[in-house]
Structure formats: C-alpha cells, structure tokens
C-alpha cells in the first residue's frame, strides 16, 4: 500500500464519516482531524517536491476498452494537493466551532457542508493523481459534481447559480470528451506519453481543434473569458468556508488540467508554432491574451460590486488570468510566477473569504453600503483583512507581490509591452477595489445597529491567523514556495527557475524579499517610534469631527460609502456594456426557442410517425455509409 493509497483512503474515510455522523456535535472537529492527518501524509511525501523523485503511484487501476487506467501523484499534483488539503483543513476548522453552530441554528445543513467539502477533497485528489486522459476525465467529472454539491447548499438563489454552473461545466466536459475521443481515434492510446508522442505529428488544423476543445473545456472551470459568468455568483452564494475553499482552489483544477494536457502534452513550442495568418498570432498568444483579458475585465467588474462576497468572487476570476498569463509566456520566471500565484492566491483568497464570512456571521450582511466602522469592534478581523488585501493587490511585503513581480519582469524580458500594460492595469483595478472593500467594511462611521457586535471567536480567528501567517511568511521567504514550484516546473517540462530563499538572483535586477521586507519593516519601525515617543496622539469621539462646521449626532450619516469611486465611474462607467451577460442571455433564448420548437413538433404531430421517420432516416444513413 503506497502513501497515495493511504491518502485517498483517508479522504474516503472523511467522506464516510461526514455521511454517517454529520449531525453529531463534534463531527466538525473529527473531520478537521482527518484533514490534518491527510495533510501530514501528504507532507510525508514532501520529497516529491525536491530533486526529481519518482511519482507516488496508487496500487489500484483497471482496464477499460483496452486502455489501462492508473493514478499517481507527481510534483505538480502534489503542489496542488498541498493547497487543497491546507485550505480544506483551515476551512473545516473555521466551521467546526461557533460558525457551524450558528449556521445550523439558522437552518443550514452542517452535515451537507461537511460532506460536500470532504467529497470535494476526495474528488480533487483523484483528479490530481490522474495518470492518463481517461482517469483525468473521471476525476474531472467527480470534481465538477462535487463543486455543484457545495454551491447548492444555501437556498434557492444558490441553487439557481449552481445549476448555471452545472450547465457550463457539462458543456466543458463535452468539449473535453470530444477532444479525448479525437485523440483516441487518431492514436488509439490515451496514456500521457503515448499522446505526447502522437501529437507533434498531427496536422495543424487538427491540433488547433484539439487545443480549442481542451482549452475551452478546462477554461470553463477556470472561469476564463468568455466562460466566466457562472463563477462569481455561484461562489458568492456558497456558505462562507465553502466559498473560501472553492475560491482558493476549486477553479484551479482547470489550470491543473490545462497544465497537464495543453502545456505538458502539446508543448509550448508546438503551441507557438500553431499560427494563423502569416504567423502573426499563435495558439500561445491566444492563451496569453485570454489571460490578460481575464485579468482586466473581471477585475474592473469587481470594482463595481456592492457586495463583499461578489467583489471577492470577481477577483477570483481576475487573478486566474495572471496564472494563465504566466504559464502561457512560459519562460522560467513567468511560469514560476504563474504557478506560485496559484499558491499565493489560495492563501489570501481563502483568508479574505473567511473574514467576509465572519462579517456576515456577526452583522448578518455583506452589503458594502450597510457596513462601516467595524474596526472598533472587530480589530483583529480588520488586521486580517488588511493582510489579505495587501496580498491580493500584490504589494510588498505579502506573497502576492512576489508572483506578480515575476510575471511583470518576465513580460518585460519577453518583450511583450502590451501584455505587461494589461497586467498592470489589472493590478490598478485590484488595488482600487480592495481598498473599497476594506474601507466600506471596516473604516468610516460605525453604524448604530453594529454598536454592540463582538470580535469573532478564536475557533474562527485561528485558521485566519494561520492563513495570514502563510501570506506574510511566504512573502518574506518566497524561496520556501519556489522549491515546490521548481519541482512542478520540472515535472511539466518547463524551464526550471533558479532561485534563492529571498526570491530571484539575476545579474540585471533580481528580487530579494528578505532585504525588501526588512527595509520596509525598518521604515515602519521608525514611524512607530515617532508615533509612540512623540506622544502627541489624542483619541477623540468620531462625532467630534469636522463636517463643514456641522454639529454631528449619532443619527447623522457624516461619512458615505455609497457610490464609491463616483468620479472614476463617471469616466469609465459607459464602458461597461454587459456584453457577456447579454451574449449568454441571447444563447439561452435561442436554446429555449429551439427546444420549444422541438417540443411542439413532438407533441402536436403523431409521435410514432416521427419516430419511424427518424429511424428510417438514420438506418438509411448507417447502411449507406457501410
């Protein structure tokens, strides 16, 4: 029995336990313990990440239609599994205590939540360890359905959003299945190495078709433009810890599959060689530009959101673009940045979703126009959100800065100024909208109805503090993560980045976060000394405030957060056209019309006659073809 068998067995134990004992009061803690043991088992395989160890194979597998299906965990899968289990552990810890009790008291199904989370972890482990295209497809379907379960837990609106996701996911799965069938027709063998041998010999047209099928199939799960519409609503309506899990890692499964199939099997050089008119635009450019558009448009959509959970979910879509962009550029620095961004994004996105879940838990709302001033009542949560948004905005000293710096630097090195500008514009939008998030939740005027709320309990704070610790420590010592990233690069056949503990050492401008963060903290230290020794600070009541000389009382709204960035929106507001939304609606309308027509045809005429006609036509086609 290999370590991977043990891991998968433990995940199955978690699912079974949640199924049977899900209503038990201590269930949450025991499942958290099971996740912790799984995490330990995964860490014991830690050697995977270093020095090209062989993958850990599963001892089971079977034959199907002459294909041998098998599972094994290599360095890429290990890297993604590490994030999956880490986030699942902390999310489960978050909901095991007071959050879960309140959720159940409000009528939510805690058993359903635990079960869906455990199923997700199990399905993701199956997917991450897939050893050929067929086992990849099995894992893919499991992950899709498990995500649906997690999304559909919280009321009618959530179920609608989850159904919308399912429609997209099924379309994506069909595209992937079509790609797999095409490969099977061409080569008759679906093992990864057989496909890798087959692909270079295929004609360009066939390769284009395969790239488009696989990339759009996997891209739907990632939420790449133009297939992103399902994601924000579905994630925003998932209950707090579930949203943290989904936002952190679930849609990264699409990136994983894209890496394993499109990047590893096709190869970036072959993609760059696939070009349309006169070699101006290649399949690789297509991926990079889809990445940039996925950065810019959803990020600026996030800027307009009035709900904290939606804002974060839109950023989840936008940040995926950085990962794809980095991997599509494909140099050692860029792909390391893209892969590291998966880890970084998971850490701060889970943190931010948990903080927002905490706000929802305490105040009952995530409407950004109905919050404010909570820093006086939830100071630790404020600090945690601050850490998270610095990471999300990609500013030092947090880890988001490191991966984004690598991607920017690689884009400059690769001579792609337009992609670079797109990435930077996306970061600008991120900074603006995360400031809005922090400001509208925690700063400004404390509302009357929130005068008596409390800080979260330690069962909720500890997982968030651990995540914040990860965000800061891996920002200070990015080499810790870059070790794993390097191993994943090697397993994907990408050039491996030479790195140091503090970042990247290069002749022309490297990055040493140890020094950078040290200098930054030193600067803060000087400021803190002046503040503390100066002794000039004086606390005043918020109502002892200047409002053009107006006398303020507690019923006066002296600070407004509604219509944030009104000036900016005056300029760029008309650019928001809702094009994708309207495109989706048009598609839905056409499908509706078509199905209505079919239904009418079938119902009004004699069905038996139509069946006979269809049978005759198809039989004559089959016989004629033979």
């Amino acid at each position: 029995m290999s370590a991977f068998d043990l891991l998968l067995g433990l995940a199955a134990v978690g699912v079974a336990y949640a199924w049977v004992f899900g209503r038990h009061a201590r269930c949450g803690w025991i499942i958290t313990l099971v996740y912790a043991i799984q995490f330990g088992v995964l860490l014991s395989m830690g050697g995977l990440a270093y020095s090209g160890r062989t993958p850990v194979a599963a001892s089971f597998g079977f034959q199907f239609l002459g294909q041998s299906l098998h599972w094994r965990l290599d360095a890429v899968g290990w890297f993604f599994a590490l994030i999956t289990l880490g986030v699942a552990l902390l999310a489960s810890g978050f909901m095991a205590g007071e959050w879960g009790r309140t959720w159940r008291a409000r009528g939510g199904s805690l058993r359903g939540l635990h079960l869906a989370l455990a199923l997700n972890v199990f399905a993701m482990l199956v997917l991450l360890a897939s050893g050929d295209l067929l086992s990849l497809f099995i894992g893919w379907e499991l992950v899709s359905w498990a995500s649906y379960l997690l999304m559909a837990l919280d009321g009618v609106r959530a179920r609608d959003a989850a159904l919308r996701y399912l429609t997209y996911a099924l379309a994506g799965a069909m595209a992937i299945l079509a790609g797999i069938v095409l490969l099977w027709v061409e080569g008759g063998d679906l093992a990864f190495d057989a496909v890798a041998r087959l692909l270079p010999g295929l004609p360009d047209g066939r390769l284009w078709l395969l790239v488009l099928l696989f990339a759009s199939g996997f891209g739907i799960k990632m939420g790449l433009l133009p297939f992103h519409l399902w994601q924000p609503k579905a994630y925003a309506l998932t209950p707090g810890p579930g949203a943290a899990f989904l936002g952190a890692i679930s849609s990264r499964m699409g990136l994983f599959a894209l890496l394993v199939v499109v990047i590893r099997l096709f190869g970036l050089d072959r993609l760059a060689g696939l070009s349309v008119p006169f070699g101006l635009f290649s399949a690789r450019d297509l991926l990079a530009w889809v990445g940039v558009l996925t950065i810019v448009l959803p990020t600026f959509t996030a800027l307009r959101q009035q709900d904290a959970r939606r804002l974060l979910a839109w950023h989840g879509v936008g940040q995926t673009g950085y990962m794809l962009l980095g991997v599509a550029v494909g140099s050692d620095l860029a792909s390391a940045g893209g892969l590291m961004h998966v880890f970084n994004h998971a850490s701060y996105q889970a943190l931010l979703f948990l903080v927002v879940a905490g706000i929802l838990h305490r105040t009952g709302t995530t409407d950004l126009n109905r919050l404010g001033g909570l820093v006086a009542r939830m100071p630790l949560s404020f600090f945690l959100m601050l850490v998270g948004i610095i990471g999300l905005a990609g500013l030092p000293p947090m880890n988001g800065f490191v991966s984004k710096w690598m991607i920017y630097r690689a884009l400059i090195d690769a001579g792609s100024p337009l992609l670079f500008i797109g990435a930077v514009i996306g970061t600008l939008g991120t900074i603006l909208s995360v400031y809005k998030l922090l400001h509208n939740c925690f700063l400004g005027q404390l509302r009357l109805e929130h005068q008596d709320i409390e800080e979260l309990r330690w069962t909720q704070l500890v997982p968030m503090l651990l995540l914040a610790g990860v965000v800061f420590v891996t920002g200070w010592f990015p080499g810790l993560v870059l070790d794993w990233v390097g191993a994943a690069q090697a397993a994907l056949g990408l050039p491996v980045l030479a790195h140091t503990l503090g970042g990247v050492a290069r002749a022309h401008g490297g990055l040493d976060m140890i020094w950078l963060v040290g200098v930054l903290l030193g600067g803060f230290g000087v400021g803190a000394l002046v503040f503390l020794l100066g002794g000039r600070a004086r606390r005043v009541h918020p109502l002892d405030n200047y409002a053009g000389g107006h006398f303020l009382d507690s019923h006066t709204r002296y600070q407004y957060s509604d219509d944030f960035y009104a000036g900016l929106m005056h300029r760029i507001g008309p650019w928001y056209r809702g094009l994708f939304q309207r495109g989706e609606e048009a598609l839905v309308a056409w499908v509706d019309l078509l199905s209505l027509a079919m239904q009418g045809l079938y119902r009004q005429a004699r069905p038996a006659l139509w069946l006979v006609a269809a049978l005759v036509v198809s039989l004559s086609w089959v016989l004629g073809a033979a």
Partner: protein
Amino acid sequence: MNDRVQSPGERVTRTNPLAHVFDELSRFCRSRSLFILHYCTGCGAIELPPAMTSRFDMERLGIQPMVTPRQADILLVTGYVSVKTLKRILLTYEQMAAPKYVIGICSCTVNGGMYWQSYATAKVLKAYLPVDLYIAGCMPRPEAVITGMRALMDDIAAGRAESWKRYYTHYDHYLGNQQALFGENWQTPTDVLAEARHYGLLGERSEGEHTALLERHQQPLEPLTMRLRAPAGGEEKA
C-alpha cells in the same frame, strides 16, 4: 507628558542654553508654513480665490488651504457672522490644534458692518473668540488680504501672535458671551478646560460662573474605544 508650547512670555526656568535659539527657529518656521482652513462665511470669501491663485499667489508665502481643522493653523472669518454660523465657527475653532490664529476679514467682523441693525447677526467677533488680526474693508482687496497675512507672519515670528492662549486663560469670559447669545444649554464636543490644563494655561479667569453652568448641562462624548467583547447588556439583547 510635558510638551507645552513655549513662548518668551512664559517664566519657565530653562536649562538649555540654546533654548531661545530653538524657539526663534521654530517660530520662524511656523510663520512660513501656514494652513488656512477651508471655511468661509459671508461675501469676503470671494476675495480669497484670486489671493490664492496665480495672480497674487499666497502660496509663495507658504500659505495654503487645508481641508480639516485638525491640521489647519488659520481660521478665516470672511464676512458677517449670523448667530447660527457663529456656533459652527466656535465648534471648528475648538477643533483646531494650538497654536491657532483667527483673522477677521471685512468690516462686518469688526462691528457688524452693514448688518449692525440685524437681530440675527453677531456684531463683534472678538467677544466670542480671540481674534489675532482684522483686515477691514468691504471687501478688502487681495493686496490687503496679503498685507494682513504678512502682518500675521511677522507677529508669529516675533512671538506676538499669542491670542489663542487667551481663549484658555479667559475661557469663562468668552463662554459667558457665548451663553448670553446661544442660551445656557450651549456646549461643544471639545473639553476646553482639559485642554487648558494640558497646555498649562489654566488660570484664575479660566473658570467661573459660566463654566460652572456649562458643567451642569454638559453631556460629554466618550472616545470610541476598540473592544473585543460586547458589554453585558449587549449580550443579553443578543
């Protein structure tokens, strides 16, 4: 914490031989960096845009507009002061940090000007708060405004612009005039006597019958503290 604002007028034993040099330096610097609060009343405000912008350019003297009273040095009262406006002026004046200077622009601030018959106008500004300087005229041109500013700068550099201390040392007098105008329930969020104590300016004429009246009516605003747990009452409600 002893961070009293020093001035030559005070009889404090000072051991540092360079103390007066530092005082001189800080007064010089202070006079070259003045922030005017963006708060204007009446018609004299119309003379400030030309005084601030490129033609007369007050900024070459180090004078700039500032949006909050906490960071501002100068309170301009630029025209007639109605009773309602005077309340706002006092609120804002008390929110400013010392040292602070008040300039009355236009004749209305001196004696009510053309509004001297009005029942709703406070005629003599300096009865309610100490005024450093009047710039008379109806209205004074930007040259006159700038000349007044220069005079204030000279006063500050020479240590003569000390009227803000008078508000603390003679608080009872000013408060009495305010109460006479606004009624005995008059109060502002600022605890002026505590500030007077902080600056070491609490004198025998700071307190009196008017401050005693104020204390009877006052409902103090407690600073908002950060806390992790709701008070017991809040938990019962939840």
